[in-house]
């Protein structure tokens, strides 16, 4: 069932100056612990040959995918794609912080808040959306690099920006059963379907995104070993008692003779 709204971020890469005001605004708005962040800015490094040099900063956060791999692995249903807004949200009261989704996310935008024992990530500031405000990162963006809005509404800021864009890139991940269809639209990103940070000081961000979703050993073992094993065991015992029960029904009950 398609969601009522189709919220999306539109990020103009050429307008980002790596000031990271969005990180601060986000952390303040959402009480993100000091050692974590919900938004990252990839420094793509200096590219090209002189004098045609360029440098790109690619901000990213949760892409609120149409087919998120993270909700596929969540055991308790704490992480879900909201039917109303189409956003991928975490119900932290139902979350136990096992991190299956953290491993599965191809964009690495989830983190475990060990203090509370839950997973946290960008929720597009739903608390602000509900009162008609823009997400904190969008509201604070000095270069108007970040835009946010409803793609179902043709008059929204993002729809207009996308209609007038020269180039639109999505960091789509499509391999096997996983096809994320992310909802961050990059404007003017150089011809690429992945981003790679070359920032030597940013150890956390030294990754190429999107990466392959990683399914943990326990999740794999559960899916591939435990479930078939249990199904076999239950099938065997159920069949055994079913055979005896049918026999009992067909032959009648053999009570002890008095």
């Amino acid at each position, binding site marked *: 069932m398609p969601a009522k709204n189709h919220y999306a971020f539109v990020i103009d890469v050429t307008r980002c100056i790596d000031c990271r005001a969005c990180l601060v605004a986000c952390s303040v708005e959402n009480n993100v612990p000091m050692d974590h962040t919900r938004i990252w800015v990839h420094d793509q490094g200096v590219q090209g040959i002189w004098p045609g040099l360029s440098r790109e900063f690619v901000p990213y956060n949760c892409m609120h995918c149409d087919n998120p791999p993270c909700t596929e692995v969540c055991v308790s249903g704490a992480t879900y794609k909201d039917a109303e807004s189409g956003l991928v949200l975490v119900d932290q009261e139902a979350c136990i912080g096992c991190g299956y989704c953290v491993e599965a996310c191809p964009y690495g935008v989830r983190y475990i808040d060990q203090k509370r024992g*839950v997973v946290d990530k960008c929720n597009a500031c739903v608390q602000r959306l509900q009162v008609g405000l823009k997400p904190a990162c969008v509201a604070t963006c000095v270069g108007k690099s970040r835009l946010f809005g409803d793609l179902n509404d043709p008059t929204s800021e993002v729809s207009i920006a996308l209609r007038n864009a020269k180039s639109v890139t999505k960091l789509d991940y499509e391999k096997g059963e996983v096809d994320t269809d992310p909802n961050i639209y990059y404007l003017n990103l150089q011809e690429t379907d992945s981003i790679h940070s070359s920032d030597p000081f940013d150890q956390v961000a030294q990754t190429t995104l999107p990466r392959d979703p990683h399914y943990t050993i326990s999740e794999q073992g559960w899916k591939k070993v435990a479930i078939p094993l249990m199904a076999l065991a239950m099938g065997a015992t159920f069949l055994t008692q079913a055979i005896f029960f049918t026999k009992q029904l067909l032959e009648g009950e053999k009570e*002890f003779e008095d």
Partner: protein
Amino acid sequence: MSHKNIPLPERQRLRQKMLKKHNLANILTHWFNVASWLLLLTTGIAIISSPRLGITPLWWQETFRNIFGSDANLIRFHYTIGFIWIFVILFNVLIGFRKYFVPFAAHRMLLDRDDIEWMMTKPLQMLGFKKEKELPPQDAYNAGQKIYSYFVVVCTLGIMVTGPVMVYKSLFPPIVKQIAQPIHFVCVFTIVAWLFIHVYMGAVFPEEKEAFFSMFSGKVSAWYARAHHEKWYNEKLKEEMEWEDKVEQEVLESEKFKEENSGAD
């Protein structure tokens, strides 16, 4: 089998005579366990919503989520009942440790040579082989029940350990919580697999009818005990005879005492 050669009046007498098999503590713990399992299993299955694992049908999940209002409430209910269950079971075991648990474990759970022979014969008989071979006499619980009890004890401990790990989520690192989930699942469904047999044998299978009613009254007939749990029946008989001897002795002594006293008058 030997008990089939018993004359009819004797058989009728044995059917009338009742022996006590379960004490009240065990009966109440058993039915408390049943009630808890019904609540925990239904809500527990409803929680597992991962489409990748694909265990629970969506209508089941939705039904329970709607009953409780939200996923978080469903989980809260599950672990509240779970903690009550852990508390009561552990409380019963610890409080009755010396009176109930140790004798139970020592006299009713340990496997002996007859049990091993039973295990090597019974499955073959169920498949239709060696029908003529006689089964060795069994204790208060037969070898199958004893094996089941081991699975139940181990898996119950597994559930009791992995459950709270997932509730006290901030105390444990993610890797522990990751592993706890499949262990919880495996422990539960190992018991559920055995449960099919347990429920069928206990509640439906005609020859074990008395076992079902004994879970309410605590008593089985001597006829049933003799046919199914001969070793235990013989023990009971021995106890009874010892008791009779003792009573007889006392009666004799008191008569003797009376005689002596009357002689003195």
